[in-house]
């Protein structure tokens, strides 16, 4: 049988729950006029009633998404070719009762409309529809404040589809607003995150305690933490983590990205900020809500001069955070990669009570991240993720995903991605922490064998640099602490630099090289600042790093 092309629905059919088929296909499926049929498409399914096309043409399908699974509401199917086997006739007996959740347009409507009226309206609008459990009925075509109805369950012995008649009893389990409902839908589609389980668990606990048990905390006389500050280098997944945790907790999310709030007119930014807080407050009336301030450092820089306009914005944010009542059930999460440039007043308890530091991922975390990233890629079984994780010191989540993408692109399309493609990608993708920063040097790998003699020095270097990284458990067992620094001295030309290069190459770790001339600056304090920057960089990319100052 020929396949069907899915076309968009005819405007006159909108809201009619019809799906238009060729008459030949209808008789092949044994469908009469208006017989219910379940169409499965990627991402969900849709329950329709079958009608012949007005022009009686075969090979096309148009369906109205009046009753479809939740995924199709936000992502309607388009440009698809369907197989006739994806259409199944379903019996639709008359239903005795349904349990539904009503989704309305605004909080105002929810607050001011009596449940009896909502019940009456919904019952009237649902009459004559075929419904399927866990499907969403789109009532947008009635042009009222009631937008969707989610069918929670139906009273039926068998099957999951049925017809609502005037005798069907309708029970409303819950009334939600559209914003809240959409937030929940988004929460269901979370991406797996590797290596952040620990941070994610602690953040989740922090969110869940005050949001889910507000009464318990108040009866204990505790004020729950209202602000959490996430800090870490760029690309470790701060933003993704917040979205994921919020989705898992089932809270709604209000996001401000710092630069979006800033306006050109005086007072405009403060006004926008107040509006966002107001939005979060109204969202919090329906259920837990998280206000997420991304790139907090741009919104709230350290106040310096007296009359800078940012000072007022910072002050506004501080007062808004202070003005949050205990009854406001929303939590503020800020994320930044430059905690030092934040205004110190923000970081006192009562504002951002807790600070969560997400560092560059460790070996195990990198392995987790890689396994999550590779789960959806056709990876050759010979690829050793542990080996790859060992070679990617200093890479953050974003770097690793770039690495996997590069490897997949290196491998010709359609084939499995082999280890050699990852090796090639490693040459291209470098840790983003080290990008364009002081001390970063390109080096051609030097092998130990290329340096003749000096065997005792080589052994010493291997012992102090490579061994702590290769055999950390042995060091722990013997109670040894790893050496902090090595000083090489000798006359010019006796391969000091080459030795260090060989050590860096053999240990696969990031190599920062700073020469004394780089650091020198005529300004007071400038050299110290540069040195501090290099060492901060080094600590960001620990545990494996060689930093040479010569």
């Amino acid at each position, binding site marked *: 049988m020929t396949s069907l092309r899915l076309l968009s629905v005819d405007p*006159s059919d909108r*809201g*009619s729950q*019809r799906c238009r088929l060729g*008459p*030949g296909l*209808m*008789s092949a499926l044994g469908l*009469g*006029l*208006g017989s219910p049929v379940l169409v499965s498409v990627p991402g969900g399914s849709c329950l329709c009633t079958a*009608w*012949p096309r*007005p022009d*009686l043409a075969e090979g096309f399908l148009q369906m109205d998404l009046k009753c479809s699974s939740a995924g199709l509401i936000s992502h309607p199917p388009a440009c698809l070719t369907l197989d006739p086997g994806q259409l199944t006739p379903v019996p639709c007996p008359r239903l005795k009762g349904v349990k539904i959740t009503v989704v309305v347009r605004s909080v105002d*409507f929810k607050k*001011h*409309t009596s449940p009896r*009226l909502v019940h009456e*309206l919904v019952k*009237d*609008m649902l009459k004559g529809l075929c419904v399927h459990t866990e499907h969403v009925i789109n009532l947008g075509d*009635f*042009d*009222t*404040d009631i937008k969707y109805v989610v069918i929670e369950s139906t009273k039926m012995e068998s099957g999951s589809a049925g017809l609502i008649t005037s005798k069907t009893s309708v029970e409303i389990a819950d009334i939600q607003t559209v914003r809240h409902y959409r937030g929940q839908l988004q929460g269901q589609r979370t991406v797996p995150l590797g290596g952040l389980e620990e941070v994610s668990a602690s953040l989740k606990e922090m969110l869940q305690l005050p949001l889910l048990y507000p009464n318990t905390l108040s009866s204990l006389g505790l004020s729950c933490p209202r602000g959490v500050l996430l800090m870490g280098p760029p690309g470790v997944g701060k933003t993704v983590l917040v979205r994921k945790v919020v989705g898992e907790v089932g809270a709604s999310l209000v996001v401000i990205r710092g630069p979006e709030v800033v306006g050109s007119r005086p007072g405009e930014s403060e006004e926008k900020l107040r509006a966002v807080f107001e939005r979060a407050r109204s969202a919090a009336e329906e259920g837990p809500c998280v206000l997420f301030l991304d790139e907090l450092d741009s919104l709230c820089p350290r106040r310096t001069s007296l009359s800078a306009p940012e000072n007022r914005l910072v002050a506004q944010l501080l007062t808004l955070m202070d003005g949050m009542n205990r009854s406001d059930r929303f939590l503020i999460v800020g994320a930044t990669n430059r905690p030092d440039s934040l205004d110190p007043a923000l970081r006192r308890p009562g504002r951002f009570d807790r600070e969560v530091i997400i560092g560059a991922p460790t070996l195990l975390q990198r392995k987790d991240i890689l396994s999550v990233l590779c789960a959806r890629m056709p990876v050759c079984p010979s690829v050793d993720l542990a080996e790859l994780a060992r070679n990617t010191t200093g890479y953050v989540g974003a770097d690793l995903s770039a690495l996997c993408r590069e490897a997949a692109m290196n491998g010709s399309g359609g084939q499995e991605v082999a280890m050699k493609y990852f090796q090639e990608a490693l040459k291209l993708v470098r840790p983003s922490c080290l990008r364009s920063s002081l001390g970063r040097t390109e080096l051609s790998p030097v092998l130990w064998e290329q340096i003749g003699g000096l065997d005792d020095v080589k052994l010493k270097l291997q012992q102090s640099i490579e061994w702590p990284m290769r055999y950390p458990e042995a060091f722990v067992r013997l109670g040894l602490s790893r050496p902090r620094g090595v000083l090489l001295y000798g006359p010019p030309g006796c391969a000091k630099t080459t030795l260090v290069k060989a050590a860096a190459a053999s240990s696969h770790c990031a190599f920062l090289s700073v020469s004394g001339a780089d650091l020198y600056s005529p300004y007071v304090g400038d050299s110290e600042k540069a040195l501090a920057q290099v060492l901060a960089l080094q600590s960001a990319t620990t545990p494996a790093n060689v930093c040479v100052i010569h």
Partner: protein
Amino acid sequence: MSKPALLPLHQALRRSFQSVEMNQKVWSGVLADCSPLMESLGNLAEQSRALSNVQLSNTPLRVFPDLKDRLRFKLLRATDTVLGQLNDKMCSLQSVRESISNQVAAVFQLYEQHRDSLDLPAVTECSATVPSLSDMLEWLQDAERHYRQQRKTLLQTLRADDLSLLESAPKRWKSLECPSAEDSVTDTLYKVSFFTAAQ
């Protein structure tokens, strides 16, 4: 071969279209009566708003005792009367709706009974004067859906304490009017006019 099954269906369809035609007249008549009522509702809301804004003690009218309360009472009573009249109109609209719904449901039930004897070529067969069965059923369903739109919601969500809601009511009432849908019902009736005339 399908003639015996088609005949009662055609008769039922004829009856339904006639009832749709009749009801359409009633419907548009009632709606025409409603619009001045909605206008006066908006007007009353505007007056109430003006009353709440004015400081009567600053005007020469301050010599009248309790003027503000009396005026408010008068306005509220007038609003009540208008709403009562609108409610009556809604009832007649509701009865139009119900009669159409019942007709359509009856026709569909009849079709379900004869479904096995009617194959798809038979239901999609049409001639110059008789549209196909599937088209006619579809038009009936469309007409029923048109008359099911929710005008009542607008009235039921009105509250005396929210004046802006009352003030915007006439505008929203107008926006509910959908001439194209009304026209499509009229079109349908033209399309079946030969069919209904041929008894």
